[in-house]
């Protein structure tokens, strides 16, 4: 059925399905919602310009978006860093009491630091899975064997947990 669908009709459907999802993933990955929106739109724009459907559209979009994130980080001379203290951290949509907001902000920083400490592949795998991408899609996006995704996620989960617990205030003493 998809094969019979005109390019533009299918593109509009994919845009409606994938834009928000890709944005959420990139926002978690970068901690910068505005940049995440830019990268998600650029990836979708390139899909239109491509003029032909990749084998796995979702994985292709993620792969292109990851490259855009890498290029942007390189351009900002922030290679290897995900956490930028000056960058706007993601704020919850609903207003919170100051102490609750502070605690939430500290927690976000801690999560970001933990993500920064693990490898890029582990970070991508963990965040893609958190957003609900399938193992097949994760494998295609990361150019990884699909049979190895379970193992990769176990390793990434343990690495993240260890890094997160290292960042616990009590653990630093």
């Amino acid at each position, binding site marked *: 059925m998809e094969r019979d669908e005109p390019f533009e009709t299918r593109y509009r459907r994919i845009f*409606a399905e994938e834009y928000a999802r890709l944005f959420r993933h990139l926002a978690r990955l970068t901690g910068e919602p505005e940049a995440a929106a830019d990268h998600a739109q650029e990836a979708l724009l*390139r899909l239109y310009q491509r003029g032909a459907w990749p084998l796995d559209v979702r994985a292709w979009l993620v792969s292109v978006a990851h490259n855009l994130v890498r290029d942007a980080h390189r351009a900002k001379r922030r290679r290897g860093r995900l956490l930028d203290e000056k960058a706007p951290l993601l704020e919850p949509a609903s207003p919170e009491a100051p102490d609750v907001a502070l605690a939430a902000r500290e927690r976000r920083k801690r999560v970001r630091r933990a993500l920064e400490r693990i490898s890029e592949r582990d970070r991508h795998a963990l965040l893609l899975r958190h957003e609900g991408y399938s193992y097949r899609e994760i494998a295609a996006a990361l150019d990884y064997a699909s049979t190895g995704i379970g193992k990769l996620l176990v390793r990434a989960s343990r690495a993240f947990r260890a890094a997160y617990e290292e960042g616990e205030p009590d653990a630093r003493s």
Partner: protein
Amino acid sequence: MHVREAELVALFDGELDAAAARSLRDHLARCSSCAARSRGIEALLDANRDALEALDAGTAPAVSVDELIERARLAAPIPRERGRPQGRPRLQRAAAVAFLVVAAAAAAATIPGSPVRDAASGLLERFRAEPPPTAEGGEAAVAFEPAARLVVAFAERQERGAIVIVLAPGPTARVGARDGTARFSVGTDSVAVDNRGSAANYVVTVPDDLADVLVRVGQTTVFRRFGADIHSLEPVRSGHTTIPFASVR
């Protein structure tokens, strides 16, 4: 035989088929050691999920798909709001624009001494052998250095004429027209060719080391290079391809 942790993660992630999931659950019901590991993995995944939820960004900023499509058609880079990090340094863009050459009588394919351009010129001669499609004749070309990719977008399919795409060394991209008129709009990484009503022939010179190249006629992609992959409406031989407009759908 105990289950592997990767299988347990796949079970919790819903990635096992029904039969495999049933078999694994049966094993967990019988094996206390695996059941304990399973609880450990489940607790790890739950804890990580809770932590990652702290990063949830809310809703994506609204964007119109029509606007995005229009931008894609024009092959223009997405404008960014002021104050946001720029995807490409301004100096680089300025350099690209400064490098722009618009020459009414200097087509890219006629610079003497260049075998590639001589070849392109020779290819165009084939089309020039036909009666000139317009009375104007003449040549025009633009040349610039794309920063990361190149998009050449022709506004529409012509009744006559052809596009010769030449893969050439060096950083410079060129788009030239002969035997007819066309207007060029140059962006950082793109050239929009307004060829409406024209019957010109074109030479598109693509820098050999530019990995991401797209040439479109209307909404049809006629040439695409992404990394090592090249897709072209007509075969690429000896570093060039000739795409008659007649072959474009």
